[in-house]
């Protein structure tokens, strides 16, 4: 993605030099704006400390909504999401008698969205945001009158502010201590989750109240409950034990490709764009490959953002209902005390698999936008040394993401299978959003 970002910047600079004002390419400018800011957001989400996967998904949803509304406001055929998303009220309306520039509106709105949702990033992220703002402004303002620029920027900012205000009330706006509570009472049953990390901060589970965050399109966090898992048991002849053995046996016979799959979908916070960011990256790659318009790309991004954000809310609600012990704890206790996982076990309860839920939601959302059997190549992690992988459909990718967690030793098979189903249920709400009239 870094290569793509640099290409965007170079393109912006070259275009700013070469493009005469009268040849203003409105559609191209909006694409540049959208791709430029989304390239940056995929870095900011990696380099802003609070951005664990649920928090990242929330940001992707809001940034997607802002992108959509900034374009929909100037497009008579587009449908606002106000009234469709929980709690989102009518957005500012453009004055039909005045001229606005769509690229400037979108640029202003996305620039404000970055500050709203990534304002706590470090000095390098701040510097990058400022650089992007300057470069984008130089590009999109060219050839416009000061009045149009000012009016368009003010309008874009107003849209972002409206969405930002809405975001403040969802229960997820404030994340303290990276999302780890200072105090936490553990369950005492053998089935209950126990910390799996030696890291001090991770002796309490991540975001135990995230299931209380207001969903976007899904009516309630409980609208798509996950199916119950097999009854917990430590008996060797139990179904639960068999699932743990499946994880254990997989780890002992892992093929090179299975290890590659585990690492490809691992998407560790602060070392990757996070799992929801991985799906956003897929959309951006498809959009570039297929030369999609800003409008079509935004359609995918907003539906995807809402799907994965709701996916994490629904998943996290269930995680703290079931509060299930991780395979590493169970296997060390019952099967092999010396067993170690391929991937680092995340610091929160096991059931259901967050990767699976959000991937199931993404699958349904993106299939609704692009169709079944939509093939794509995913080079999200090329900069990190992981080769691109090809998929024949979003379903294939989602299922690989789900099973990757068993290869990594992170989840039982039932957590992946049931998680996918929960995610597909959640994703249907996002897929049902009306974006055009």
């Amino acid at each position, binding site marked *: 993605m870094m290569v793509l970002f*640099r290409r965007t910047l170079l393109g912006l600079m070259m275009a700013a030099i070469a493009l005469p004002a009268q040849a203003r390419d409105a559609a191209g400018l909006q694409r540049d704006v959208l791709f430029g800011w989304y390239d940056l957001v995929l*870095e900011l989400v990696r380099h802003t400390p609070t951005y664990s996967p649920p928090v990242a998904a929330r940001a992707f949803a809001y940034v997607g909504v802002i992108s959509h509304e900034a374009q929909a406001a100037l497009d008579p055929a587009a449908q606002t999401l106000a009234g469709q998303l929980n709690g989102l009220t009518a957005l500012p309306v453009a004055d039909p008698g005045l001229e606005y520039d769509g690229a400037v509106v979108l640029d202003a709105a996305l620039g404000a969205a970055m500050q709203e949702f990534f304002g706590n990033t470090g*000095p*390098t992220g701040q510097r990058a945001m400022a650089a992007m703002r300057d470069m984008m402004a130089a590009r999109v303002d060219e050839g416009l009158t000061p009045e149009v620029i000012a009016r368009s920027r003010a309008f874009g900012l107003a849209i972002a502010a409206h969405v930002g205000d809405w975001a403040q009330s969802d229960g997820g706006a404030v994340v303290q*201590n*990276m999302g780890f509570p200072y105090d936490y009472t553990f369950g005492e049953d053998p089935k209950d989750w126990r910390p799996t990390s030696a890291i*001090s*901060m991770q002796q309490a589970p991540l975001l135990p109240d995230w299931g209380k965050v207001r969903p976007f399109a899904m009516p309630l966090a409980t609208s798509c409950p996950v199916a119950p898992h097999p009854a917990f048991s430590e008996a060797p002849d139990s179904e639960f034990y068999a699932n743990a053995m499946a994880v254990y046996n997989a780890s002992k016979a892992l093929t090179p490709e299975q290890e590659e799959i585990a690492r490809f979908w691992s998407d560790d916070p602060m070392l990757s764009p996070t799992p929801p960011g991985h799906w956003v990256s897929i959309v951006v790659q498809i959009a570039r490959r297929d030369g999609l318009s800003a409008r079509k790309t935004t359609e995918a991004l907003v539906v995807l953002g809402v799907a994965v954000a709701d996916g994490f809310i629904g998943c996290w609600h269930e995680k703290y209902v079931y509060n299930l012990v991780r395979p590493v704890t169970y296997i060390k206790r019952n099967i092999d005390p010396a067993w170690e996982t391929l991937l680092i076990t995340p610091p929160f309860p096991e059931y259901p698999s967050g990767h699976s839920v959000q991937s199931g939601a993404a699958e349904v959302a993106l299939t609704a936008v692009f169709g079944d059997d939509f093939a794509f190549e995913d080079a999200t992690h090329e900069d990190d040394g992981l080769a691109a992988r090809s998929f024949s459909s979003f379903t294939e990718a989602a299922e690989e993401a789900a099973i990757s967690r068993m290869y990594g030793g992170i989840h039982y098979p039932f957590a992946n299978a049931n998680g996918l189903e929960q995610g597909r249920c959640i994703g249907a709400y996002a897929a049902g959003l009306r974006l055009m009239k």
Partner: protein
Amino acid sequence: MKFWALIFLPSMALAEPAVPVFLAETGGVTAAYEGDYYFMVGGGPAVFDCNGDRKPDLYVPGGAAPGSLWVNESPVGGALAFARVTSGVELDNVTGAYPLDIDGDGALDLVLMRLGQTQLMRALGGCKFEAANDLWGFDAPADWTTAFAATFELGADWPTLAFGAYIDQAASAFPWGSCTDNLLYRGTAGRFAAPLPLTPSHCALSMLFTDWNGSGLPSLRVSNDREYYKGGQEQMWHLEPGAMPRLWTKEEGWARLRIWGMGIASADISGDGLPDYFLTSMADNKLQVLKGGAEVPVYSDIAGKRGVTAHRPYVGGDARPSTAWHAQFGDVNNDGRLDLYVVKGNVAEMPDFAAMDPNNLLLQGADGVFVEVGDRAGVASMNIGRGGAIVDFNLDGALDLVAVNRWEGVEIWRQEAALGHWVQVALHQPGANRDAIGAVLEVRRGDQVERREVTVGGGHAGGQLGWLHIGLGDAEAVDVRVIWPGGVAGDWLALTAGGFYDLTPAGAALWAP
């Protein structure tokens, strides 16, 4: 022979270690580490004797401002006093500094890491220096240099230098994944050859040549900042004389670790006779001990078990995670056990990390667990720290502390009085490697032997050469032995407490301050 296994015997007293008392006393040093974005890392001081009086002097990098050299005029056992001197090292854009006798003339030269071309400064005596890049054929690129280590490879008549580079300055608006090449310089007959790139490079903030398995052949550990690399991890390079450096690999046992690596402190804490490594980062810090035996570099993190995660402030009420930079082991209370000093400070204004982030002074107890006493000892500074040092400025046997801060003046804490017995030694040998870099100092107490590597590198962007301090507790004397570079073991030498000793392959000589 046993190493330090006895520290875990349950029969030993587990009383809390004696807490030293420190007095804030800059001795007139007023320097600060200045600058904004390009100086968010760095700030390591060099501590060394530049005028031959055997007292440690202090070079402070100024960041965007000129660096400054402060001559130590402290009376023995008295209040600290420094005088700023014009020395030729008042360069700007210096990110850190290490002393090293590059040309083997007996005078410590200075390596000034910079934003821009790194500068080697040749000592002329009397705390005067001249630029020596051309003289020594040192061809330095205009990088953002942030890490340094030096060694003398077996048979070499000229040091081998490793430099760690940070972000590509040309990519500063989008720096992620832009780490520039670390470089290795070898040389002979008074000149450096063209550098070898240590590719892949992952934005190094600390490097250390270290004989991790006691083989006699050091490797190069590199601690990298995961904020900026892609596909990176902590690294260790094979360094075989005359051969191209090559990474220790997964197949050789090297396990992937990805942290905000900022500093390396090394000492034998586990008592296995081999170096352990404290790695500073954001939130939890690491204390790595070898678990795979000397055959493979497989490490366990025992920071939690030993009480040195130092992951959040312990005083001041700010519960957000810490940001750690310089780290160094030293026996500050002279009880015979190494303690740990960590300099802390927010990157600048990162809201998810502690703004009030006190430095740590962690005293090792008899059970091997460290206890935080920074506040009680009087060194819990809330300034935005970066570099640091543990050093006995006034030669009274009680270690003092230094912290270099962003935008605020250097802090120095003089220890009021030594709490136990001590000796200090300096190693000297003929030839190019005058200060015996790569030697191992063995300290024997009863049937316990602590082994200390003599290194140049590590910490955060700064280092020191000079007296090596050994705490003795109540002991009146101690046996020490030097394994000289190349592996020749000297004789065991009985040193009486309270003395300064020059150790050479021929024996020990008492020096009086």
